[in-house]
């Protein structure tokens, strides 16, 4: 077997040196009733390397993907451009095949990259500190709610209904076995899709509230002024948690930190990480310095070595499960380390100017698309970054467009009710969540609109 270096004579020599003759002697401590007959598992026969490539190529060819279609899908995952250098860097065996940096002297590469990542995430989100990643945005949101309970010693969580329904579902799930209330604030009125209405969120806050969670830009792509929320959080002594889905927004629009957020969580997938169907993506977690010791997850910190040279280590481990066990700030151990290196590489290649260009192109594409919509299709009101909701006159019209678009190699958007359960109850399945990035060209938008005109 090509991944196993031993020859049979190696095995025999090793066994003999230990006074054994059969390798199964080494399994004598497992009761015989539990021994599987070797070779009897219901698995296919081993494939050669060429066989593996062939199998995966065949499976991959059954899929449509962003490379051979025009992808207008968002909802938390976005098809942004990934420079070749990013994949090169994270393919290097020294980054790829290292463990969590428990031995810092021989993990300074990973550690410095994490420190650079933390710094750039803090700057991008406008926060003072960042951790070295969570799994993805939904679990990061849930961890923010848990952290707010520890900081405030209160147990009520208020979350806007305009937060990605998947983030809400996971957060509610995480909180459901603990004491305290979980309150979702419904947005809008029957018959319409609304962006975030902060006055409704603020009305739901009270003295028992540990934190309020909003998304910015929200699930529907809406951008709004967060300032009133800061005032309300101060009034109720609760933490302001801001979630986001597409980190590229902050190359252009004001950061959550500038509005006074206490904790910022979201997806860093837009920062050089392929969509890969469901992951691995990157959970971003940043907060104010004063809450640092209640922050979940690994963090990398600056220090010096025995010769006084600058170096880096994982630090504040007394918050963590391997020291604090049941009193830890989180159970997280393995996180998304390599994705931090990817995001750090991406941001280094982009710089402020590149990040702003990505954001401008992403937003300009949506603006162009909306400006060309034919009658019978309405985009949501207000300021939007790179995502919005289109409303059709009927479910039939919408689905006719989606199907026609498929025929033209266009993934036109996500039917809202597939993510937001209950959206169909608003006024039928008439809504389409549409996202754009810098990977969408003007021609793609022209084709999108032309298809729409045919289908309607």
């Amino acid at each position: 077997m090509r991944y196993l270096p031993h020859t049979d004579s190696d095995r025999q020599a090793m066994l003999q040196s230990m006074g054994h003759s059969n390798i199964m002697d080494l399994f004598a401590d497992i009761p015989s009733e539990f021994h599987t007959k070797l070779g009897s598992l219901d698995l296919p026969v081993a494939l050669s390397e060429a066989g593996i490539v062939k199998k995966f190529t065949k499976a991959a060819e059954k899929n449509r993907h962003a490379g051979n279609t025009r992808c207008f899908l968002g909802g938390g995952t976005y098809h942004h451009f990934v420079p070749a250098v990013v994949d090169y860097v994270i393919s290097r065996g020294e980054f790829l095949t290292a463990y969590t940096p428990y031995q810092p002297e021989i993990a300074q590469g990973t550690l410095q990259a994490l420190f650079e990542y933390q710094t750039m995430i803090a700057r991008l989100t406008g926060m003072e500190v960042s951790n070295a990643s969570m799994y993805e945005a939904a679990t990061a949101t849930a961890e923010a709610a848990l952290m707010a309970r520890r900081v405030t010693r209160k147990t009520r969580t208020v979350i806007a209904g305009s937060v990605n329904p998947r983030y809400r579902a996971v957060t509610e799930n995480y909180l459901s076995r603990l004491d305290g209330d979980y309150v979702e604030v419904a947005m809008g009125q029957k018959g319409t899709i609304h962006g975030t209405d902060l006055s409704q969120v603020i009305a739901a806050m009270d003295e028992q509230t540990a934190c309020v969670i909003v998304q910015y830009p929200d699930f529907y792509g809406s951008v709004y002024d967060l300032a009133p929320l800061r005032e309300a959080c101060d009034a109720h002594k609760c933490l302001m948690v801001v979630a986001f889905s597409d980190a590229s927004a902050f190359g252009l629009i004001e950061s959550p930190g500038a509005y006074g957020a206490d904790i910022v969580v979201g997806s860093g997938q837009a920062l050089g990480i392929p969509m890969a169907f469901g992951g691995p993506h990157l959970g971003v977690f940043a907060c104010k310095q004063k809450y640092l010791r209640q922050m979940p997850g690994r963090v990398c910190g600056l220090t010096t070595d025995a010769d006084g040279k600058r170096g880096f280590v994982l630090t504040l481990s007394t918050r963590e499960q391997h020291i604090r066990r049941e009193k830890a700030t989180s159970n997280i151990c393995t996180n998304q380390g390599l994705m931090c290196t990817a995001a750090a590489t991406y941001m280094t290649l982009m710089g402020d100017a590149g990040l702003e260009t990505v954001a401008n192109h992403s937003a300009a594409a949506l603006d162009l698309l909306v400006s060309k919509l034919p009658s019978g299709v309405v985009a949501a009101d207000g300021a939007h970054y790179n995502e919005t909701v289109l409303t059709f006159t009927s479910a039939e019209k919408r689905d006719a467009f989606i199907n026609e678009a498929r025929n033209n190699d266009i993934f036109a958007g996500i039917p809202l009710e597939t993510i937001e359960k209950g959206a169909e109850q608003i006024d039928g399945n008439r809504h389409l969540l549409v996202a754009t990035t810098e990977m969408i060209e003007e021609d793609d938008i022209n084709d999108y609109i032309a298809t729409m005109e045919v289908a309607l």
Partner: protein
Amino acid sequence: MSNTTYSATSGIQQEEPLLFEHAHEASESISLPGVQGKAPSSLDAFKRKTAANIPGLSEPEAVRHFVRLSQWNHGIETGFYPLGSCTMKYNPRVNEQVARLPGLAHVHPDQPEDSVQGMLELLHELQGWLCEIAGFSDVTLQPAAGAHGELTGLMMIRKCLDARGEQKRKKVLVPDSAHGTNPASAALCGMYTVEIKSGADGRIDLDELKKHLNDDVAALMMTNPNTAGTFESNVKEICQLVHDAGGLVYGDGANLNALVGVARPGDMGLDCLHINVHKTFSTPHGGGGPGAGPVAVNDTLKPFLPVPRIEKDGDVFKVLTEDEQSIGSVLSTLGQTGVYMRANAYISAFGHNHIHKIAQDAVLNANYVLSRLKEAYHVPFEGLCKHECLLTDEWQNKHGVKTLDIAKRLIDLGFHPMTVYFPLIVHGAMLIEPTETESKKTLDSFCDAMLEIAAQCEAGDTQALHDAPVKPIRRRLDETQAARKPVLVWQD
């Protein structure tokens, strides 16, 4: 001493500043595709007032920066990496290649099912294989790592107990040798943990276990082989006792590598098992993830599996998004599917005809290392080990040498240290997991190094141990300083 025995030399290592210290004006922006316009005026009121201050390096500078950083790391591809309970085995390169196929890497999670049948097929196939290898009836791919799998498994156990009307059961029994994630996961699930003291042989003590079994018990979390590297031979009886007391048995599968193809935890009476695919199934650990922690379950827990998950309906693969008794979802998506592509490729390479060789060679290697080192280092628990072996620094302590010194000296000799000071049930633990992908030559070289260190202790020639490491780009780092006044971001 011959310098040619070991692999570490002081090669050229370039100092490299933080990218924020590459002080020059940002170079011309990277060329980007798309609609070459500006954001609409409706966003004007929301624009950043100050730039984020992300420096931006030219491509050649950025590549050199990160390549230099990479060279400061020890990875599996660089050298031996015997971290106990971490299963640092070789990560096949073809797995990286296939996971990057555009039809797998650039698929959006909300594409229509009929446009992702190839992806769903590979994931569904893996679901079946994981169940078959671990001996369970179904599995969820949603958990993103081992600890996330623990949480998910305990959520299912909680729901199962609630469905039985046993809401009051909140006690989770955890052996004192368990990973720290076990009690942390239980706490997150609204339950409390009680630690069971290990017996003199490092295994679960049945009498001690029985003392804690009562109407409050929700579950026992067991790791088998345990973190001392030994098999819990009473596993059947342990499961029976917990079940008789009305509790369920959670399996921490961190050490599954010892059993792959040879024995199945599901056959032993466990109710569920999380699998660390970044350990057992060779997906790269990436300097701290991404991993994946699928949880396999028996029929008792199957109704409570998270959604979404994949089912086959005739020839068509479908994503099930609702299920009456499900605990709901624990992630935004189906799971870390990119990681699972690699796991599928790995199992494909072994097939039914080779898969047992993983456990065989892993266990052979660990026992071989143990047999070579047991005269020079204290072995706290006698007998066979499984995929990893446990030593302590007891005999070296009398020469003023601790586990940490031994670990750091190994770095100078070209090896990644073993896991140190874990498990907590022995003083000065050194947990060595060689894995099956190391040659006899490498194992011998490592053992020679360990024996030489022991001999230096005996001879009182310990200065090199206390000074170590001297060969990497940095020497021992001051962790106290880092924690006392944490600096987590760079200030220009």
